[in-house]
């Protein structure tokens, strides 16, 4: 089985993000692998270990992704493709999906595993749109995966009414949630070996396509500006005799907040 998994380099969400003049302040930011994609990589590596699959990762944009891709190699991914092109600067989910489609068509993959969403955009669309473009069956928000045979996998999806167990015919696309597994720390030995491994870096032309073909020039939507998030502020805090302050608060809840 040949697996293609996607990894996106995104801003580290542990940091405080400052917004100035409608844009994000880049100074002091650091970039890391998207958490959900790390789960996707772990899923692919586990399938390699348990069912003998061959794994390839693809990363789009992000500048110098060498460290991130090497880390994935150290986790166990065997091949890596990086598509970098200035035209991709303002790419949206549809553009990413088109580029991924081109990458998919160049190889012979049975399964595409992406993270459910990217922690910078939080759109959660790319994987599903890719499946539509490729005409492949797709299940999103997957929390467990099992190989049935060469042509079929069984996945569990966290849905609204409960856990949905779905059988997919390959080739297929799945997007995974963080609860599917705990991504391993890259193996020490893997880190050493990864230093020697090559990454297949291509621009759109080398990929056999063009900015027009993937829709770069005409994105369906664009970010006009960034704004500070409304942060919630603390309200009134009461200390003292439990009976008194509790009565006070219940009174406020009923008459001020009007929730009762």
């Amino acid at each position, binding site marked *: 089985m040949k697996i293609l998994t996607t990894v996106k380099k995104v801003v580290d969400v542990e940091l405080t993000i400052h917004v100035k003049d409608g844009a994000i302040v880049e100074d002091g930011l650091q970039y890391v692998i998207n958490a959900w994609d790390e789960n996707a990589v772990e899923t692919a590596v586990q399938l390699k270990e348990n069912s003998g699959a061959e794994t390839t990762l693809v990363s789009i944009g992000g500048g110098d992704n060498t460290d991130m891709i090497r880390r994935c190699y150290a986790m166990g991914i065997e091949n890596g493709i990086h598509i970098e092109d200035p035209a991709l600067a303002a790419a949206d989910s*549809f553009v990413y999906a088109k580029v991924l489609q081109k990458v998919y068509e160049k190889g012979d993959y049975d399964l595409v595993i992406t993270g459910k969403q990217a922690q910078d955009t939080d759109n959660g*669309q790319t994987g599903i749109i890719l499946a539509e473009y490729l005409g492949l069956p797709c299940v999103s928000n997957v929390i467990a995966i099992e190989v049935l045979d060469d042509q079929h996998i069984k996945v569990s999806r966290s*849905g609204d009414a409960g856990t949905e167990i779905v059988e997919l015919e390959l080739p297929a696309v799945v997007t995974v949630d963080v609860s599917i597994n705990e991504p391993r720390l890259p193996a020490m030995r893997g880190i050493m070996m990864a230093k020697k491994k090559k990454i297949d870096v291509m621009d759109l032309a080398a990929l056999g396509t063009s900015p027009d073909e993937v829709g770069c020039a005409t994105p369906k939507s664009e970010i006009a500006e960034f704004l500070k998030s409304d942060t919630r502020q603390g309200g009134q805090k009461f200390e003292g005799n439990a009976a008194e302050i509790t*009565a006070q608060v219940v*009174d406020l809840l009923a008459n001020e907040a009007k929730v009762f």
Partner: protein
Amino acid sequence: MAKVLVIAEIKQGVIKSSTTELLSKAKAIGAETAVVAIGSNIESLIPGLVSAGSDTQYVADDPGLELFSAGPYASCVVDAAKQFGANLIWFGFSESGKAVAPRVAAQLDAACATEITDVTLHGDQIEVTRPAITNKVMQRVKVNIEELVAVVRAGAFEATEGITGTENVIKLSPPAPDLKAVIKELVSDASGDIDLADADIVISVGRGAKDQAGIDLVKELANDLKAGFGSSRAMVDGGFMPHGKQVGQTGKIVAPNLYMAFGISGAIQHLAGMNGSKVILAVNKDPEAPIFNVADYGIVGDLFEVVPILREEIKKIRT
């Protein structure tokens, strides 16, 4: 004129409030409204769909649609959208919505936005705001084309009181099943407990409750108020509460009218799950607990002392 197609959120035979909320917003921006309902044996819901504020109701009622499957559900929505000529297609914030919206957008070659908090129309130009970078910033997004598919954040739109609609039912032909993604089984969450995502009031316990005795104490209050009963990660990790009850970044995101946090310190991961609540009440022994930074009302005290008093006072108020 804008034409908004709202996908009705139906759960266990009940139309969820998001449907009314989305339709209310649609009317508020002066759009024509339609709703599409997908499921099995949903005829009886039509009056509810009308009173939620829709002027046309597209109904896809088929046994094959009883269990959710993204492919067929997307086909129904596309069918309705095309028939209606919708330029705005809105889903409530659910797993189904998030799974179907991108498919619909791809098939209609529309734009797609997840978790929008507001939508404005400047003539033909659609603009939405939505959170990004794990809720740390907001984006104002300009849509460059005429059609937008969006998933709306829970509680972002307000239901208009006394909203009405017109009955105009159009039956949709059942879609082809997805033969390559076959639903084998649904392992239900339903435990008879009140759904955290829908409840008006949600009450959660944290490490401060210590053990089963503490949990049971707080549960009494939840029962009194018929509130959803949730938990912080600590109590789930400790084996006291099931994972399905976890409120937080990696659990359930809730936005009730009133959220009560007992013995919860307020770690960022938990806050991410309930920050959208209208009113937050927190009870904690530690005056420096971070939860007090987001709580509208905070009681510094021992929950074992406070909860019984709360129950008494609330009983008094409600009579």
